[in-house]
């Protein structure tokens, strides 16, 4: 042991480097931390040199820790200790009576239980709730991290924000920003999301109580975050402290641990780090974007041709048309002359205040126009379309696809493929004869790719233009993967530690974004599949690296208009020009002068959904309410009740009444396959004399109640909800719960086999193993195999005999009734489908088959997408209301899951009917839908139908779904017009 000497601990984390020097009595002599901006090796050396200067050399013991320290420790051959371990060592030495440690770092979140069974946990691959997440969210709101903290303190309400990962949270926050939610509330909601993630995702049901210690950067510097923790953890049983040196515990642990190792001279240590300045590992790079400067020059010359004609606004007189594209992160505005030439354009980040920005720019435009230019019409598009149209009384509000098509057509009259990569979204449309033939939008996981590059550039202190410029010179772009920005972010950090240059990263990011769009969003069979005349646009394509990467990857030259970032607004303006009917726009300076606006939060109480609303009130008594799912919440008059199979099925299932009986109460969780099999079990159990108690309808509150027992954060949302339903039953005082395990389904003759997916099949077993509150002696999860009738009967009879002493004859009679009811239910759904189709044809309405699983009728799972569709004036069918029994499809995949077979069959049905289109609902994390969605898509596209997919999760962002559905609606309407 070498306890009589200096001990030095160095902690290289994902964002900062920390160093601590201890004397023999473990007093801290020196401590310092600095952000390393990924120059980890250099910064580590600098800090070491500072310590060296401080004590003037001599002998020390040393140990390194931290996630970024691993590789360096090996190369410099210095002792290393895993950071969680270092933390727990430091806590042993420096803190007394600690029960739980919560440590949030740059990329990792950890929780350590020290008493009552020691346990250390770290976040999984998908989990957010870390410093990097806070940085991202702050930049989304255009505030510094300190400001975010300040803002959070004066919040008045908290929104539900998906806490699982940064990308999802962003998808939840973005629409709130656009709808005008207050920054104060958002800041606090972001912190609350982190708290929820830590408690649910990390602690996973283990109660956090006793003396809690906060460690790490975010918890040290952000008192608002600590406050959220304090409010959420039960104050009766917890006492939280932020210890002195809360930032340095990993480094302290490393220093303590260094005493296990021999003394070395400080000079040797410095030399070791000097030698380790250049990493040994060689990165496997991608081919460069441009081989020679000439290549680049040619490339630039080619794309400069695609410019738009400009007219000087100061000399122009006559009519003009305004287009406003209120995007998710930026606002774009364009004023064009009668000949379509550009008079004025404007592009800025929303900074969370889209309405005031538009107002300001409108003033500017009116000033420039003075009396000589008459704004004849204006149109708005994008996420904020409805908000803007309501706020400023704009003449037209058009869906984005239309706007982009108008603009692209201006540059390339034969355009048959448009790809738009904006800050948050990626959209592609295929066109045939000027009609949108298919629309692809990214799902949550791919969102934010565009703005990720920008955020990253600004973290390096560069603007996006100069960052892009660097990438052009890259000799070996780094491969950063393409799953999502959270994964990309950590790939970038790894690459930086391995010595990648800014140029290589810039080019690598461009390639990643392109790969994401090609392989995840478009999933084209071949480059020719995209189209002959491709127009690419959106702010992200202004980055030459992205444009080049795209051309390289598809092996084709494409058109990128010079006004790439303004195309939505430009298209809107063109739309206004072509569709104008009046002499003067509604918009006027007078209107702006009296324009006042305020927004406040509210809650709709007209149905159990309790949508959180944002109510924007404008001068002149105009009001725009957003956040709701249906007309009710928006205060609109209800449109004529259109047939909605989702609503019908749910009502039907909830109509089974419980009847008190001799056997007493038994609970059934209303989850997963119960949405299909409830008629059977409910009828049968009631027949046997049980009073069946259903867990109820899902809600986000119910979800949060069960969240702490979810063992896998990547399982689908419908499965996660099961935990809440079980808790709900327990809370209702139900001590017996019936939840049978059904690996197979009934044979409907639609496929080669009739399985349930593994999650639906075995979830009852997972519940038994994870919900500790459950009394397993009265939690019934018998295995039933329904496809061989005789055995099914025998198994069920045996179960009820053994468990409840019910005679076989009785059970079988009840089962028969149950089966009859189940068949009747299925028949009734089909009848409804038939009647809905007849109704639609009579009333000349369009129909969408909303294809999902039985459990997608749960309003908490579908987020009311069915209602959104009826609000568009479209009739909603479900896959099981139209799939014909025994109509086995010849598909190119193994067709062996009953629920999925119905989808193929429904797709085929849609192809045979002009007035029916298909929308597939896919739960995030549904592995089987990776297979079904491709197959369904090809069934539809082989028959010239548009395939639309909506991916759903706990995120509540209906904005993207709305755009998708509206686009589909308009596209099919146009198609029918041209026919």
């Amino acid at each position, binding site marked *: 042991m070498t306890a009589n000497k200096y001990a030095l601990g160095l902690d290289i984390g994902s964002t900062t480097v920390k160093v601590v020097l201890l004397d023999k009595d473990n007093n801290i002599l020196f401590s310092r931390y600095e952000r390393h901006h990924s120059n980890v090796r250099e910064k580590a050396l600098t800090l070491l040199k500072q310590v060296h200067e401080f004590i003037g050399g001599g002998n020390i013991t040393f140990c390194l820790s931290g996630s970024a320290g691993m590789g360096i420790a090996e190369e410099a051959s210095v002792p290393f200790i895993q950071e969680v371990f270092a933390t727990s060592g430091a806590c042993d030495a420096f803190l007394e009576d600690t029960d739980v440690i919560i440590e949030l770092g740059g990329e990792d979140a950890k929780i350590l239980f020290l008493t009552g069974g020691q*346990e250390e946990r770290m976040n999984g691959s998908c989990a957010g709730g870390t410093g990097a997440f806070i940085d991202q969210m702050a930049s989304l709101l255009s505030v510094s991290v300190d400001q975010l903290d300040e803002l959070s303190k004066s919040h008045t309400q908290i929104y539900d924000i998906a806490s699982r990962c940064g990308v999802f949270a962003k998808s939840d926050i973005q629409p709130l920003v656009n709808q005008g939610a207050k920054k104060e509330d958002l800041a606090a909601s972001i912190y609350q999301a982190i708290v929820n993630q830590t408690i649910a995702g990390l602690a996973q049901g283990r109660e956090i109580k006793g003396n809690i210690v906060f460690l790490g950067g975010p918890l040290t510097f952000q008192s608002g975050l600590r406050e959220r923790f304090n409010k959420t953890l039960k104050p009766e049983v917890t006492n939280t402290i932020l210890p002195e040196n809360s930032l340095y515990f990993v480094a302290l642990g490393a220093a303590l641990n260094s005493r296990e190792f021999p003394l070395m001279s400080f000079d040797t240590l410095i030399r070791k780090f000097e030698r380790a300045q250049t990493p040994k590992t060689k990165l496997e790079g991608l081919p460069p974007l441009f081989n020679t400067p000439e290549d680049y020059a040619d490339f630039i010359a080619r794309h400069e041709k695609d410019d738009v004609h400009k007219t000087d606004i100061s000399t122009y007189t006559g009519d003009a048309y305004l287009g406003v594209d209120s995007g998710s992160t930026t606002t774009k505005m364009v004023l064009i002359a009668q000949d379509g030439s550009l008079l004025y354009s404007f592009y800025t980040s929303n900074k969370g205040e889209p309405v005031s920005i538009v107002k300001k720019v409108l003033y500017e435009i009116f000033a420039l126009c003075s009396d000589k230019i008459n704004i004849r019409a204006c149109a708005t598009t994008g996420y904020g379309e409805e908000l803007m149209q309501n706020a400023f009384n704009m003449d037209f509000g058009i869906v984005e696809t239309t706007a982009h098509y108008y603009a692209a057509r201006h540059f390339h009259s034969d355009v048959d493929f448009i790809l738009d990569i904006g800050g948050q979204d990626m959209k592609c449309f295929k066109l045939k004869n000027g009609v949108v033939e298919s629309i692809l939008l990214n799902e949550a996981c791919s969102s934010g790719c565009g703005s990720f590059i920008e955020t990253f550039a600004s973290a390096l202190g560069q603007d996006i233009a100069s960052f892009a410029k660097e990438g052009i010179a890259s000799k070996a772009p780094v491969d950063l993967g393409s799953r999502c920005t959270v*994964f990309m972010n950590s790939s970038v950090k790894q690459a930086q530690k391995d010595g990648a240059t800014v140029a290589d990263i810039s080019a690598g990011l461009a390639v990643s974004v392109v790969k994401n769009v090609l392989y*995840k969003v478009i999933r084209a069979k071949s480059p020719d599949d995209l189209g002959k005349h491709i127009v690419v646009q959106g702010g992200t394509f202004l980055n030459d690296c992205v444009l080049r990467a795209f051309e390289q990857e598809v092996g084709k030259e494409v058109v990128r208009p010079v006004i790439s970032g303004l195309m939505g607004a430009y298209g809107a303006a063109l739309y206004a020009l072509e569709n104008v009917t009046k002499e003067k726009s509604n918009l006027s300076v007078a209107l702006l002068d009296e324009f006042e606006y305020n927004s406040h939060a509210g809650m709709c109480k007209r149905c159990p959904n309790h949508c959180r609303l944002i109510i924007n009130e404008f001068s002149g008594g105009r009001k725009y309410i957003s956040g709701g799912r249906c007309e009710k919440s928006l205060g609109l008059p209800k449109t004529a009740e259109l047939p909605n199979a989702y609503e019908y099925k749910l009502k039907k299932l909830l109509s089974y009444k419980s009847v008190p009986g001799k056997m007493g109460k038994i609970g059934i969780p209303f989850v997963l396959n119960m949405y299909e099999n409830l008629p059977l079990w409910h009828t049968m159990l009631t027949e046997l004399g049980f009073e069946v108690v259903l867990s109820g309808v899902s809600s986000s509150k119910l979800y949060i109640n069960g969240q702490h027992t979810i063992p896998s954060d990547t399982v689908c949302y419908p499965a996660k909800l099961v935990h809440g339903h079980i808790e709900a039953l327990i809370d209702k005082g139900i001590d017996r719960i019936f939840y049978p395990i059904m690996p197979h389904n009934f044979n409907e003759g639609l496929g080669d086999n009739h399985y349930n997916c593994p999650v639906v099949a075995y*979830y009852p077993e997972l519940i038994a193993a994870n919900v500790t509150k459950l009394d397993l002696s009265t939690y019934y999860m018998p295995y039933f195999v329904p496809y061989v009738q005789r*055995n099914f009967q025998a198994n069920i009879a045996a179960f009820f005999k053994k468990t409840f002493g019910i005679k076989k004859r009785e059970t079988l009679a009840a089962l028969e009734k149950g089966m009859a009811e189940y068949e009747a239910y299925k028949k009734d759904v089909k009848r409804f489908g038939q009647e809905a189709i007849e109704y639609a044809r009579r009333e000349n309405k369009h129909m969408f088959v909303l294809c999902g699983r039985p459990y997608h009728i749960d309003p908490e799972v579908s987020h009311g997408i069915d209602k959104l569709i009826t609000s568009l004036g479209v009739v909603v069918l479900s896959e099981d209301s139209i799939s014909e029994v025994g109509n086995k499809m010849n598909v190119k995949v193994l067709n*062996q899951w009953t629920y999925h077979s119905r989808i193929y069959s429904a797709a085929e049905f849609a192809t045979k009917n002009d007035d029916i289109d298909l929308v597939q609902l896919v739960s995030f994390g549904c592995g089987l839908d990776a297979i079904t969605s491709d197959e369904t898509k090809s069934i539809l596209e082989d028959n010239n139908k548009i395939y639309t997919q909506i991916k759903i999760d706990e995120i509540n962002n209906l904005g993207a779904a709305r755009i998708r559905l509206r686009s589909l609606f308009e596209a099919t309407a146009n198609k029918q017009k041209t026919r």
Partner: protein
Amino acid sequence: MAELIYDQTGRLLFTEEMRKEYTLLIPMMLPIHFELLTNIFRKHNFNVELLKTTGKSIVNEGLKNVHNDTCYPALLVIGQLIEALKSGKYDTNKVALLMSQTGGGCRASNYVHLLRKALKKNNMEHIPVVSMNVSSMEKNPGFKLTVGLSADLAVAVCYGDMLMSLSNQTRPYEIEKGETDELIAWYIKELCENGLSFAKYRKYIRQMVKDFSAIPAYRTPKVKVGIVGEIYIKYAPLGNNSLENFLQSEDVEVIVPGLLDFIMFMSDHHAADTRLFEINKKKGYLSSITESLLKRLQRMQIRAVKGSVFTPQCEFEHKKSLINGYVSEANKMGEGWLLTAEMLELIDSGVDNIICTQPFGCLPNHIVGKGMIRKIRTAHENANIVAIDYDPGATQVNQENRIRLMLAIAKKRLDKSMPNGPQDYKIPKKVSQEADNNENMGVLIQ
């Protein structure tokens, strides 16, 4: 050139003629086993080639050709095959692809179909895909799992398991670095040339135990870590970023459950259906016969190892008995109950440190892997289990950091068990060979 013949569903068949003219490409999973399996196919007159390619380009090819939300193993296997086809090394008119198909409710049953879709995408639909399965899906005139072939394959799997297990128990302790790997290489060659049949099985496995015991080793206690999980990810270095190598570089003894258990698990499906639900009786009877043969192979292995310095594999039935109270033996999609059983068996045999590997979003693992960890931890407070997701986008740093945390805990416990360092440790007295012989040998011979 062989004629392209399709069945009534339009599936391209692998014909008898193709068997003579074509080369069958096999994607890599387990380096030792697959080398041996390849040679069994050769022995049965197939032209086969095992793909040993590695590198990022396989992942990229996979991303291009497979839906990105499909499991990582599908992405890698299909990526590896497509990359090979595009490499120009093979005459694409004289090549076919061999892929195993598990059947059952896991989406892995669909890999074969996804591969065909990928071929179509690349205009290579004329290349036949041969599904190797025991569920009588997709029959091919030129590829039949005959009794003889199946038996030989089973023997090769057992050899593979033996070599894997013995070498894992030797390599960390060998005095002369590299000796263990040399011995493996020697055995692969030797077995391929002389030993690939049941007749020589007993002789070779006994010799293996002797030869591996003979490698000079210093058996100080080391941290032992078991790897369980989805079958491809747990075995294939391509899938798990060479996890075994990483652990070995951390001075750890790695324990990987054998492939034979998985095959027994598969063949038990129908028998289990019969036992539990009285269905599939005919298939159940057949599968119970297969199973009893496989059990015999396993018992022979266990007996060969018993009494040596090595720990034998655990008997299948014992493994299965451990899941009581966790999952049912009717839970059989993917790795099903076997995965839970493997974790429990490791803990049961004193290996508390476990890495549970799975592809990102693996469906069965939500239940039988991650879903059971909490319960296992409650029942065994020493259980030190970490679940790691593998995916094209997951960074190695984050994976390794979590593994290191598990290792740090393991190391601390090991140190605690030896307060004075390794000198505390005494080599346990060797169980006498005779005692073992007396107990078991009589049964074994004939």
